[in-house]
C-alpha cells in the first residue's frame, strides 16, 4: 500500500477492503466475515447507546490523540450513565493525502484504549474525501453498553436531593490546556498533558461499593460549570461549590491567570462529576482515591434547596459569586 491515503481507497471496492484488512480489522480483532452491521446478543439487560464525533485540532497532543479521545469519550459517555460499555462502532472520514503512518498510529491508540477499557470495536465505516473537504481526519464513534435497570436514575439525577454532595475525580482544565499548547499558535509552552482516560473501571468500582450514587456526568466541553448548570436545571435545585476544593494544577492556573481564562470552563476528557447521597461522600471519596484515575478526588460541593437553580461559588477568600454557563469558547485577553 502507498504511504498516503488516496480517494480510491474510499470507493468501497478492492482497495477499500485492502485498507480495512491491513489497517483496521487485524488491530481491532475483528473476525471474518466482516458484515455491514454487528449483531450483538445479550439477554435480559437494558442497552445504552451513544454517539460522538471527534474533530480535535491538532490530532496529536500531549497525553493522547484523536483516536484515544474517541474511544475514551464514548466509553465515558456510557460509563457515566451507570452502564457497562461493551461495543463500539468507529467511522473515519479521511482527507485525501493524509499520511498513512499517522492513521496507523491513531488506529493503534484506539485498539490499545479499547483493550484497556475492555470494549470491542465491532464495526465501522471509512470514507476518503478530496483534499480540503475535511480537516485531515474526523472520527465518529458510537457505543453500546449494558445497564442494570436499578441504575437508570443516574443519568437523569431524579433521586438527587438537597444535602447530597458533589465529588470530582481530579484537577480540571488539563485537556484543554494541553491541546491549546499543542496548537502552538498562542506562543506559550506548558508541561500539561491531557487527562484523556477511560473511566469505566473507576466508576464501576464506585457503583459496586456504594448504593448512594445519585448522578454522574463526564465533564467535557464547556467545563465543570456547564455540567453544574445542566444538573441544576435538571433537578430543580441549587448547587454550592467550594472553590478551595476544586483541584487545578499550577501550570493550568498560571496559564489561566495570564490569559484570563476561567479553569472551570475548560474542557476535560477524564473527569467525572459524581453526586453522592449525604453521609456516603467520604466512603466514595476513599474508593476513588484508591484508584490511579481518582488519586486527587475531592468533595467540592453540595446540592441546596434553591428554586432559582443557581450554581454559587464560595470563593477561596470567603466571597460569593454565581457560576454562569460559558458563552462560546474563551478568548485570551489582555484586559
Amino acid at each position, binding site marked *: 500500500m502507498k504511504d498516503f491515503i488516496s480517494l480510491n481507497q474510499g470507493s468501497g471496492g478492492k482497495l477499500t477492503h485492502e485498507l480495512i484488512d491491513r489497517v483496521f480489522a487485524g488491530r481491532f480483532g475483528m473476525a471474518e466475515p466482516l458484515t455491514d452491521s454487528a449483531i450483538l446478543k445479550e439477554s435480559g439487560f437494558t442497552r445504552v447507546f451513544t454517539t460522538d464525533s471527534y474533530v480535535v485540532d491538532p490530532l496529536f497532543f500531549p497525553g493522547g490523540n484523536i483516536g484515544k479521545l474517541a474511544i475514551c469519550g464514548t466509553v465515558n459517555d456510557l460509563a457515566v450513565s451507570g452502564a457497562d460499555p461493551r461495543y463500539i462502532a468507529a467511522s473515519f472520514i479521511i482527507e485525501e493525502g493524509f499520511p498513512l503512518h499517522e492513521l496507523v498510529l491513531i488506529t493503534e491508540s484506539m485498539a490499545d484504549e479499547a483493550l484497556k477499557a475492555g470494549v470491542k470495536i465491532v464495526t465501522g465505516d471509512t470514507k476518503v474525501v478530496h483534499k480540503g473537504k475535511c480537516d485531515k481526519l474526523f472520527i465518529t464513534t458510537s457505543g453500546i453498553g449494558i445497564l442494570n435497570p436499578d441504575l437508570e436514575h443516574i443519568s437523569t439525577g431524579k433521586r438527587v436531593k438537597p444535602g447530597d454532595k458533589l465529588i470530582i475525580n481530579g484537577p480540571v482544565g488539563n485537556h484543554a490546556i494541553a491541546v491549546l499548547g499543542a496548537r502552538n*499558535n*498562542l*506562543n*506559550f509552552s506548558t508541561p500539561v498533558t491531557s487527562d484523556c482516560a477511560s473511566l469505566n473501571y473507576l466508576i464501576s468500582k464506585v457503583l459496586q461499593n456504594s448504593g448512594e450514587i445519585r448522578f454522574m456526568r463526564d465533564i467535557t466541553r464547556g467545563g465543570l460549570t456547564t455540567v453544574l448548570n445542566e444538573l441544576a436545571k435538571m433537578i430543580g435545585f441549587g448547587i454550592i461549590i467550594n472553590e*478551595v476544593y476544586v483541584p487545578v494544577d*499550577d501550570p493550568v*492556573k*498560571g496559564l489561566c*491567570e495570564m*490569559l*484570563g481564562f476561567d479553569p472551570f470552563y475548560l474542557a476535560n476528557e477524564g473527569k467525572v462529576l459524581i453526586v453522592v447521597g449525604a453521609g456516603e461522600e467520604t466512603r466514595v471519596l476513599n474508593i476513588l482515591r484508591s484508584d490511579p484515575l481518582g488519586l486527587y478526588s475531592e468533595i467540592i460541593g453540595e446540592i441546596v434547596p434553591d428554586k*432559582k437553580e*443557581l450554581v*454559587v*461559588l*464560595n*470563593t*477561596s*477568600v*470567603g*466571597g*460569593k*459569586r*454565581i457560576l*454562569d454557563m460559558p*458563552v*462560546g469558547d474563551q*478568548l*485570551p*485577553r*489582555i*484586559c
Partner: protein
Amino acid sequence: MKYIDEFRNKDLVMNLADLINKTVTRDYTFMEVCGGHTAAIHRFGIPSLLPDNIRLISGPGCPVCVTGTDFIDKAITYSKMNEVILTTFGDLLRVPGSASSLEKEKAAGADIRVVLSGLEVLEIARMNPESLVIFLGIGFETTAPGTAVTIKQAEKQNINNFFLLSAHKIMPPAMEAIIKEGVNLDGFICPGHVATITGSSIFDFIPERFNLGCVVTGFEPVDILQSILMLIRQVNQNNSKVEIEYNRAVTVKGNSIAQRLLSEVFEPYDATWRGFGVIPLSGLTLKKDFEKFNIEKKMPLKINSQEDNDLCICGKILRGLETPADCPLFAEICFPENPVGACMVSNEGTCNNWYKFRFIK
C-alpha cells in the same frame, strides 16, 4: 504561586473585611477605573464581603468598553480586504460594531488572528511579506508601551508590511472628565498596572484640585480590601492624598524607560470615548516620525458608524451616572450571550459583571 497566593489568604481577607466593617462611619462611594479591578472584584466575590454602606462603582476602565463602534467598523472594513491579515487581542473579537463583529467576520472567512503580543504580529508580518498585517492597538498606559516597542522594532527590522490601527488611550483625562460630570464620589481605587508604567504621580491632581482620595491598588483580594480600608480612613480623616497600596510594583515615578518609549512613538490627541464623546488629549496616535506605520494614513477610510442602540445606556454607565439596574435592556434583551453594548461583551464590562453578580448583592 509566589506573590499571588499570599495576597489571596482567606484569613487575612476575612480580617480585613471585618476591620472595614469596624472602620466605616457613613456611606462611601468609591470608583475603580480599571477593567482588571472590575473583574477581580467580581471574581473573588468582594461585594459580598463589604458592608452595605460601601458602594463600588466602575468607571471607564475597560478599554474595550470605551472603544467606539467606529473603531470596530474600521477594523472590519480593513479585514475584508484581500491582502490584509488583521491581528488583535482576544478582547475585541466579540465587540459589536454597527452591523457585525470581528468574530463573525472571521467565521465568514476574513483572516483575523488572535495574538498575545505585538511582537507576535511582527513575526506574522515577516512570514507573510505579501500581506498587509494590521495590529489593533487597544489598552491604556499599561499596554501602549508594548505597542511602542513593536513599532520601534518594526522600524529597526525594516518590516514594511506592518501597520497599527490605534485606539490606545490614557487615564487621567477620563478621570478628570468623570469628576467634572459631578458623579458622587468619595475616592478612586486607582489602576495598579497603569501606575507601574506612569508612576503614582499622575494621580496627584485629583486630591490637589478636587479633594478626592486616591489609592493605587493591586489586583488580589487582599490588595483591594486594603485599599478600600485606606480610602475609608482618608475620608474619615478628611485627608485626601495619593497613596500606593501596590508598592511591590508601583513607585511614584514609574517606569522611565516605558515612559520614554511612549513619548518617542506616540502623541496625545482628542480621542472619542464611547459614552463620553471627545475628551481632549486623551488618546495616543503615532507621531510624525512613525506615521508610515499608521494604516489610516496609508489607507484612509470613510465609514458611517451607528452608535449603540438608543436604549443602551453604556455611556452613562461608563460615566458612573447610572447602573445596569437602570437599563431597560439589561438582563431582558442584553445578556452576555447576546450583548447589545460593549459593557456587556467585555469580561471586564460593568454590565457583564453585574449580570454575573445578580442575585448576590
